[in-house]
């Protein structure tokens, strides 16, 4: 489909105006920054309503097929809408796993029937999705998943447990990785992948208290839970391949995601702004030479990450180690955020010791963000594992 620049420009103006006018007022409680941090019912309701409104007004799923509730437009429309969300710093879209993991997966491999069944309610946030990959004893070692599924008639009987299921309390569906054979050739080929209904006898969800003191993740227990075999994605034993495909939607810049803001991200600009407000030795912190140097270093690093994304779009500049930039997006972004929050805290003098409270600087947001930042440097393959992956896959270094 060809896109006229005029139409795009008009859409940009329209999106910009809509988000400016419809940005929700601050509710009376602190909002989470990502879908992984939704800890209370009021937060959940607020965010679900927001996604629904965004969808009803046509700003999410723009590139998804029309027949399944999408906009049927080129990706560039969604990019414009997402950018407007970021510009106006509106809340993120709650149904992240649905929009960016399960949705693209279903669109790429399910039957038309299943697409009709799942996709529209993902977009409207009517049905929330969660993810069941990690297990308590095999954190980063997905291939070693031990949660078991035994074929029994038309069902698989699942036993075991999954951890870090965000929105587990609210989700209607889970993308679930299960070991259906212990005698497969390799540990990977013994895995299968399901779109599992959460309202199933034998599935129990227990919230986990995070290091921040809040809730937001769950542990999901399976006790002889019967999942229909028809819920399997691909064939038995395809689980690893499907899971990897799913992870690619998240880790890299592959297409297919519904788009939309997935986090209310703090940027280095927020830190600069804080440094202007914060006082050090009776003067704005931003006048302190040490703080200036540290800020400059962070800004240069942040800009480097932005420019890298642009460089990755230019094939001629791919260089000797192709893939380095895209494969390191998560590593760079999450580690940068952690350090940035640490630095932001250091600007607050003795008040840096405060925590979530109206007397804390920015209501304790920086402290909370710092602690939450570990979900990025740990979840989805720790920083240490990311280094291994890049070292081995991109640089060709031998395995440990």
């Amino acid at each position, binding site marked *: 489909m060809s896109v006229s620049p005029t139409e795009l420009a008009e859409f940009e103006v329209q999106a910009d105006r809509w988000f400016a006018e419809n940005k929700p007022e601050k509710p009376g409680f602190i909002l989470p920054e990502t879908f992984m941090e939704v800890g209370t019912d009021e937060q959940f309701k607020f965010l679900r309503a927001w996604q629904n409104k965004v969808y009803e007004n046509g700003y999410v799923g723009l590139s998804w097929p029309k027949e399944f509730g999408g906009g049927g437009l080129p990706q560039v429309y969604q990019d414009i809408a997402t950018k407007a969300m970021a510009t106006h710093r509106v809340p993120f879209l709650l149904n992240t796993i649905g929009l960016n993991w399960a949705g693209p997966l279903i669109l790429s491999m399910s039957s038309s029937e299943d697409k009709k069944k799942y996709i529209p309610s993902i977009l409207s946030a009517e049905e929330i999705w969660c993810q069941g990959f*990690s297990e*308590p004893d*095999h*954190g*980063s*070692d997905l291939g*070693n998943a031990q949660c078991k599924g035994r074929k029994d008639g038309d069902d698989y009987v699942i036993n075991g447990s999954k*951890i*870090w299921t965000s929105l587990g309390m609210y989700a209607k569906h889970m993308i679930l990785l299960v070991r259906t054979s212990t005698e497969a050739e390799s540990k990977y080929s013994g895995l299968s992948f399901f779109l599992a209904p959460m309202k199933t006898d034998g599935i129990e969800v227990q919230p*986990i*208290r*995070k*290091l*921040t*003191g809040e809730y937001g*993740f769950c542990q999901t227990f399976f006790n002889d839970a019967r999942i229909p075999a028809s819920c399997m994605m691909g064939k038995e034993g395809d689980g690893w391949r499907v899971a990897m495909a799913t992870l690619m939607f998240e880790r890299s810049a592959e297409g297919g995601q519904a788009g939309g803001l997935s986090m209310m991200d703090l940027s280095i600009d927020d830190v600069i702004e804080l440094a202007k407000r914060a*006082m*050090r*030795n*009776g003067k704005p912190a931003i006048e302190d030479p*040490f*703080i200036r140097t540290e800020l400059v270093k962070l800004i240069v690093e942040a800009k480097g990450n932005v420019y890298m994304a642009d460089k990755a779009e230019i094939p001629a500049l791919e260089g000797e180690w192709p893939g380095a930039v895209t494969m390191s997006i998560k590593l760079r972004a999450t580690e940068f955020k*952690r350090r940035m929050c*640490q630095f932001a*805290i*250091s600007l*607050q*003098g*003795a*008040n*840096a*010791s*405060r*925590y*979530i*409270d109206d*007397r*804390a600087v920015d209501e*304790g947001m920086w*402290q909370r963000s710092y*602690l939450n930042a*570990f*979900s990025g*440097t*740990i*979840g989805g393959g*720790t*920083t*240490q594992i990311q*280094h291994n992956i890049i070292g081995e896959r991109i640089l060709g270094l031998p395995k*440990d």
Partner: protein
Amino acid sequence: MTAIEFSDEQSMILETAVNFFREKFPVNEIHERNENLDGSTDLFWAGAKELGWTGIVIPENYGGLSLSLSEVVPIVEMMGRHLIGSPFIPTTLAVTAIVSAGSEEQKARWLPSVAEGGIASVGLTEEDGSWNLSDVKTNGEVRDGELILKGKKCFVLDAKRADFIVVSAIIDHVVSLIIVTREQLNKCIIRSEVVIDETRQSFSIEFNDLKIPLTQILDKPDLNDLENAALLLISAEISGGLSGVLRVILSYLTTRKQFGKYIGSYQSLKHPAVQILLSLEATRSHLYHAAACLSGGDKIKTEVAARSAKAYGSDAFAFAGDRAIQFHGGFGFTYECDAQLFLRRALWCQYQFGDAAYHHSYLAPLLLD
């Protein structure tokens, strides 16, 4: 002349403290203690009284042991090791202020009760969070033979339990220290503060024209001394905290397997653990050197040593706490994991009484010019 003089008293107290905390405050009960901070404090305070710790820096003639802060250091270090958040540091600081700046009458009036197990605290920080103890907005005006105190103090630890607190205020353009009694405190607005270290009970106190007898103004306060004392004690807490968090890290690294191997065999975890160990040894060395300087009485040396210990130690502890979370992986992200307790403690220690950058800026002229 070695940089560290470790007295027999320090040695004995350290040994006692190691055993006391190991028996009474085992590290596997940290979470339970946090659920019941008051009960835990009672338990600690009873033991401290029995062991004479509440009177260490109080002169003998006021019922104490006539020892110095150097002998308090091993106790605070072990408190840090076991993540105790009692009023011991604030009480010791209040006593230090009175011992160094009080008149004989004042000492006689305030010290014996503490030696016998009373609790006290200090209020030196204000709403702007400035680390410079001379940045004081709280104001005292002498009127009709009374001091009228107006202002607000923050991060006053254990204010609800304290028999009295020592607060800083400007009187006649000079920063002074004033004792405020329980009775007087009861006329103030005391609000609990939410702080990152949940083992702390922190309060803000608002003085609205609070009337205080002039006899409660300390004579010749030396804020530098008081700052050095605070830095020394926080550094002790940091040193102990570093041991504690390293122990937490090691126990995970030697028991948790990933990809079929103990995670402690991976160099990306092993090597930072070694860095933490070496930073602990360095922090501890700075700490006991600072303690020796304070005993030695050289003010400049003490300031250099105390600021160095705090600057070096607080960065090391913050690093260790941060890595503790990371190295615990998913479990580290839970409230249940001890790593977060130490990271929160590290952040508290890092940002009370000045962070590394702040102290570096004061060390520069002392070390370079």
